[in-house]
């Protein structure tokens, strides 16, 4: 099952996603939590802490800047760019803060 949580800023998307992820995991599902927010903080809600949350963002950034190689498979991506969260959830960050270059509207 693939679930996307969307909505206006500040309404509780991240909190909802983290509770869903951990709840499903507690009930025996294998759960991967994808943080698709450019301002990624699902890690904080899941409970991996500030440092790991920031490390995943930095890894994602390194990938974009060519300092890290892309993972050839889903499993390897989860291994290299993920972190273990409580209740057996595996977290990975698929977005990053944009650089300062002005872009299109």
């Amino acid at each position, binding site marked *: 099952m693939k679930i996307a949580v969307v909505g206006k*800023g500040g309404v509780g998307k991240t909190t909802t996603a983290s509770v869903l992820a951990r709840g499903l995991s507690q009930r025996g599902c294998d759960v991967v939590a994808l943080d698709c927010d450019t*301002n990624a*903080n699902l890690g904080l809600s899941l409970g991996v802490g500030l440092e790991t949350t920031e490390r995943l963002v930095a890894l994602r950034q390194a990938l974009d800047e060519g300092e890290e190689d892309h993972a050839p498979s889903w499993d390897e991506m989860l291994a290299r760019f993920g972190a273990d969260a409580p209740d057996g959830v595996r977290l990975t960050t698929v977005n990053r803060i944009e650089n300062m270059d002005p872009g299109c509207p």
Partner: protein
Amino acid sequence: MTSATQPVSADDPFEDGVSRRLRIAFVGKGGAGKSSIAGTLARLLAAGGEPVVCLDSDPLPGLATSLGIATSDAGIPDEAVEEAPEGERARYRLATGLTSEAAIRRYADTGPDGVRFLQFGKTRGHVAPLMRSQFAFRHIVADIDDTPWHVIGDLPAGTRQPFFGWAGFAHLVLVVAEPAMSSMLSAKRLARLGEGENAPLVAAIANKTRRDDDADLVSQATGLPVWASAPVDPAVREAEHLGVPIIDHAPDSPTVQALRSLLERLHNEERSSP
């Protein structure tokens, strides 16, 4: 008219010249209180007889309510832009002869106390009817320094727009942060807007504080000076439920008071800067 030719130093959020104008962008995590605060600050300025234009580049609603402008989704009409000639970087440019100032007068709504409100419109579905409007908005904002308005911008939640140059008009970026981990982490990331040459001054507003030391907490966690602090304020919630501006519903509420002090501070900085 103000002079746009004189450079503005990074630690001076005001223009040099005769009439110095505020150029402020509000950024921060979703729900931190950007729209509530931006709208209220704009109304306070306007109530003092100052010319203010508010910029809303959020495709989701927010700012119109705190200003007291009957909500409208409509953006800037298509006529404001024309196709740019082949080979130009942008696909559209402002219609021939249309200046930033004229565009604001023509297309910005007028609200209470004469406050003006310019938005590129609200998303209605997958289709992108906002494209021309967004280009118009970007072009108007690019030259907004040449206009005599105080500018208060309300950006969408998060880091995307700010880091893509949408706060580029600002001499002062105010990061709104709640004393909560994720809000402060977002604010810390946004503090990077103050890095580099020609970067704006960046300061924080601690919002929805519960304890006396919450402002210090925000300052420590974000590395930013806190220029204003507003407590969790039932009046703000009430105003939101009633769909009326905070400043009309509760002009003496702690939030409005905090923003009055902020405005005073901004004016003082203006007087004390060379």
